[in-house]
């Protein structure tokens, strides 16, 4: 018998626990030739802003040990484009879509949420409270429980869709931020966004990235991300989408056992466009091999008493 993979995170129900991470899978269309878009539990699109954003000057990426830094600067074609073109493309292919949103004020987040509220094909909104690559918004909200809660509440009031709050691990007390956004109406937490970092070109004697700082992702950040999931789950037992350096099913299972009910595959897509699909297949194989009938039985199972 095939194991059960369906998961429920608050009101968000996914046919399986593997989604794509925002910013690493474009709007799905970029990978449509290479990947079966109907496989992931959902596709999370690049963070959307009210107006199109042009992003940071290049270089925008650089490889680091077992990871990479990016400073894209939230370049995106804007929410109107998404509603007119990006979303219909995915909807035609019956892909459940999570829209990620980013703004510079709580009012901007609320306006985005209102615009997306009744868009067919959307299964949830992910509030990006943690982009390290923009001067205003982003981490400035995610680092402060009060500001993070204010943004979350504004989104909650503007939409009937399930709200996911995406947090950074670059905070003094991640549990405090997590608690604040849950109280403000988030049903799910995405943990974690990239970690702030930088690289210096010793021959040019200048920072490598045009933006100086960038966000670190990939296998290098996985232990930090697993720790964040563990701590938040231990304190709050809330639905979590775990991410950060997941390359294989084994990596994903670390997050699940630490408390994630779903996982997101990000940077791995650049290495292997079919990474999400392979992580999903690997999780299913693990369940069969280990004689586990329901994926949900693994969630948080590494904590004492499960």
């Amino acid at each position, binding site marked *: 018998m095939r194991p059960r993979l369906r998961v429920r995170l608050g009101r968000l129900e996914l046919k399986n626990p593997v989604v794509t991470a925002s910013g690493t899978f474009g709007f799905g269309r*970029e990978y449509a030739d290479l990947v079966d878009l109907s496989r992931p539990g959902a596709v999370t699109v690049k963070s959307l802003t009210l107006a199109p954003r*042009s*992003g940071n000057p290049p270089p925008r990426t650089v490889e680091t040990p*077992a990871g990479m830094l*990016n400073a*894209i600067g939230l370049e995106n074609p804007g929410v109107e484009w998404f509603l007119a073109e990006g979303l219909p493309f995915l909807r035609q292919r019956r892909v459940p879509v999570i829209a990620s949103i980013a703004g510079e004020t709580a009012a901007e987040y609320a306006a985005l949420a209102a615009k997306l509220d009744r868009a067919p094909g959307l299964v949830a909104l992910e509030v990006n409270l943690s982009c390290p690559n923009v001067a205003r918004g982003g981490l400035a909200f995610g680092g402060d429980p009060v500001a993070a809660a204010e943004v979350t509440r504004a989104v909650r009031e503007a939409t009937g869709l399930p709200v996911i709050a995406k947090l950074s691990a670059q905070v003094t007390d991640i549990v405090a931020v997590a608690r604040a956004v849950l109280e403000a109406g988030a049903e799910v937490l995405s943990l974690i966004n990239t970690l702030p970092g930088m690289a210096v070109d010793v021959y040019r004697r200048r920072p490598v990235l045009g933006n100086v700082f960038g966000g670190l992702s990939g296998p290098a950040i996985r232990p930090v991300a697993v720790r964040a999931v563990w701590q938040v789950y231990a304190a709050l037992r809330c639905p979590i989408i775990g991410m950060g350096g997941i390359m294989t099913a084994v990596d994903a299972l670390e997050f699940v056992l630490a408390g994630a009910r779903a996982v997101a595959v990000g940077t791995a*897509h650049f290495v292997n466009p079919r990474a999400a699909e392979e992580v999903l297949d690997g999780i299913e194989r693990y369940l069969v091999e280990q004689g586990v009938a329901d994926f949900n039985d693994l969630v948080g199972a590494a904590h004492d008493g499960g």
Partner: protein
Amino acid sequence: MSAALLVEAVVLRTERVAPDHYRLVLHAPEVARAARPGQFVMVRCGSAWDPLLRRPFSVAGVDREAGAVTLLFRVVGRGTALLAGTVPGDALSLLGPLGRGFTLPQAAEAAAVIGGGMGLAPLLFLVEELLARGCRVRVLAGARSRQYLFVPEPAPGCEVLVATEDGSAGRPGPVTVLLPFVGPEVRRYYACGPREMLRAVAAELERRGLSGEVCLEERMACGVGACRGCVCRVRRGEGMAWAAVCAEGPVFPAGEVCWE
């Protein structure tokens, strides 16, 4: 452009062609069939997570009958060092062909093909296709020194002029010293090489009323337009925009590129 493929290629040959320079011939029949000059492939250079990302390389030639794809590269870091160490029979994951290649003329005409250093790699493939269409091709090739000059095989319809920085072959100096040899019969030009060289070539030839295409490079992560990491500044309509080199390029009309 045809759809990108994700395939396991098998190394047929890894040949050292100059100090630190290698030719890698891969068995990848679908990619050989689909690739057009100017397009590139993203190669996984190892099997571990470090180095992590794929590395982009221009397709330097294809043999569609043999199902072979040729890459030409210089060892500059860990990824290229790993590729230089491959032996026949090794498997390499290949993503491609990617990007927009050169626009080939509809009719046989005269074209100038201008390359510096490793920029000659995609141009070798381009020259083959231009000749197959009956074009007359004048190649201007530049390199640091004669051993790093990668020029097309002699062929009817193809004339090669060379320049080297150290004067060991052809004219001394950068490839731009050869620009006066782009004659009045030439209808279009194609160029690839360091950004400074491309800027100088475009400035000179566009001033003479010639239009052409340039093949650009930028650091890449995804190679398919998903991450928006590889952008360059281009003119679009009245204004400027960031274009993804991997998906909207790597070949751009020279007049579109903002060189500052």
